[in-house]
């Protein structure tokens, strides 16, 4: 009997895997076909759509993105891009960062649970600069990107997006380090244990004082877990899942933002 249940279980999971693979294949075909259709339409109606490769249509695309941002009821201040996938595509992440910038999001964090982006920080930064030029064309100079490393505070400038690359070390390990710092202060009699509360710990964990907690995390990939992403900072973060960051389209990104705009936070009330 147990064998029969196991067989049924295996069959069930096989079917679920097939369903997932089929969905991914369909998405791939639709995107590619959609891209072909758009390119054909773009030739007939120059400037009408954003997919043209001609330089003179780069302006309408940026204008459309800015308008999209303004049209949303609620725009997140800080978006986290959580890549829960085996392989990382730098160009696609760079596109997402540039779209965040164009739409008016002030802070973007990029994370994967093996610290790959962190180790290849400069490669990611280069890719983002490249895509900024590619997607925003001549207008890219109006937008300034600031890449944040540990311990530095962002400069407050208009039309600026701050990008930070995170790894699991910024999660639990960071909390442990803050705890060690506080315990050292207690050892040196600079503090007592009674001083320690949420506010004290929070201010230690908020090393870059102006960066707010992520309002929205876009999770890419099939794994339904935060995989160690900033446990302290995500207490009120909305999580929206997307199947993959590979070949992610602007439309996918915008529909996630629209979903975020429609959610209501009661904060206990």
């Amino acid at each position, binding site marked *: 009997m*147990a064998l029969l*249940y*196991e067989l*049924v*279980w*295996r069959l*069930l*999971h096989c079917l*679920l895997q097939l369903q997932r693979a089929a969905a991914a294949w369909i998405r791939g075909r639709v995107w590619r076909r959609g891209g072909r259709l758009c390119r054909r339409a773009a030739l007939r109606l120059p400037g009408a759509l954003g997919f043209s490769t001609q330089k003179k249509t780069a302006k309408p695309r940026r204008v459309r993105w800015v308008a999209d941002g303004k049209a949303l009821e609620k725009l997140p201040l800080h978006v986290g891009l959580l890549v*829960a996938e085996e392989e990382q595509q730098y160009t696609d992440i760079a596109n997402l960062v540039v779209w965040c910038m164009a739409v008016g999001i002030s802070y973007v964090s990029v994370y994967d*649970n*093996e610290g790959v982006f962190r180790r290849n920080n400069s490669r990611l930064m280069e890719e983002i600069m490249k895509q900024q030029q590619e997607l925003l064309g001549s207008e890219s100079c109006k937008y300034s990107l600031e890449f944040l490393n540990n311990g530095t505070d962002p400069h407050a400038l208009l039309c600026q997006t701050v990008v930070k690359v995170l790894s*699991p070390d910024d*999660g*639990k*390990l960071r*909390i*442990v380090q*803050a*705890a*060690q710092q*506080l*315990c*050292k202060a*207690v*050892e040196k009699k600079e*503090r*007592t*244990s*009674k001083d*320690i*509360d*949420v506010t*004290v*710990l*929070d201010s230690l964990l908020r090393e870059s004082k102006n960066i707010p907690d992520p309002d929205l995390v876009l999770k890419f990939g*099939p*794994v*339904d*877990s*935060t*995989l*160690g*992403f900033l*446990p*302290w900072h*995500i*207490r*009120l*973060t*909305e*999580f*929206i899942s997307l199947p993959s960051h590979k070949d992610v389209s602007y439309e996918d990104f915008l529909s996630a933002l629209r979903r975020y705009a429609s*959610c209501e*936070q009661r*904060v*206990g*009330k």
Partner: protein
Amino acid sequence: MSWIREGELSLLERLTANVLKAGPMPKHVAFIMDGNRRYAQKRHVERQEGHTQGFDKLAETLRWCLNLGIHEVTVYAFSIENFKRSKEEVGGLMELAKEKFLRLLDEQCFLNVCFAYTSRHEIANAVKEMAWGVEQGLIKSSDVSEALLNECLYTSSSPNPDLLIRTSGEVRLSDFLLWQTSHSCIVFQSILWPEYSFWNLCEAILQYQQNHHAIQKAREVHREGQAVQQLESDHSCVAELLQHRGNGKPVDPQCRQTALQSYAASREERVQRFIGALQQKRDTFFDHLLSPTAVA
């Protein structure tokens, strides 16, 4: 009379349970039971009725969990933030909790109820306890680690939840078990809590099973990272000690290795003594809380 709803599963439910149990099953499930008030609105009844139905649904869900071999459940009953609600609603919730949870004491599984809880307070309190340990001379600040912080959380006697389920369609954690669920499977379901069904639970478990391999792998990576951190910390403590004792002469590797092993052993001993002291402090606190003078 048992509060956990009596009644066996139907034939189809039993068959489904047996199929699911052929795969990896979560041992500890956490629930954010959201949607009582929206349910009440939908059914045009009082909010209090929505909460009552919610508690009854919890009883039913606990029965399903037992049938599925899930022996530990943690629920978010009341957040510190919920004190912002009307006096009437808060009072009603407290009364309901008192009535329903008292009846649970006879049952043979673990139900952890997070009441007047937020995860940030729990984490800050754990750090405070470690600082207390340092103040008491039980541990050093260099003994502070992720594993030690785990021991200082309110959930220290439970394993981390394998699966976290939030109902009503909200897709956030709302300051619930943020530390403990960092590598849990998180399932957001749109059903309102009082409408939760056995099939919703099976759906969540199925998702857990689909994620099982990837999450186990991620947990392993994290554990390896923790081990490396501990080793590095021990190394640097030993290096400091040897420098302190030595007179500028280089230390041979054998001597360093022995020093490292003996340091790790003494660290473990310190930590165990601290955990013992912490447990005693907590027991004293609860004894005092339950003493006749306190209850009056």
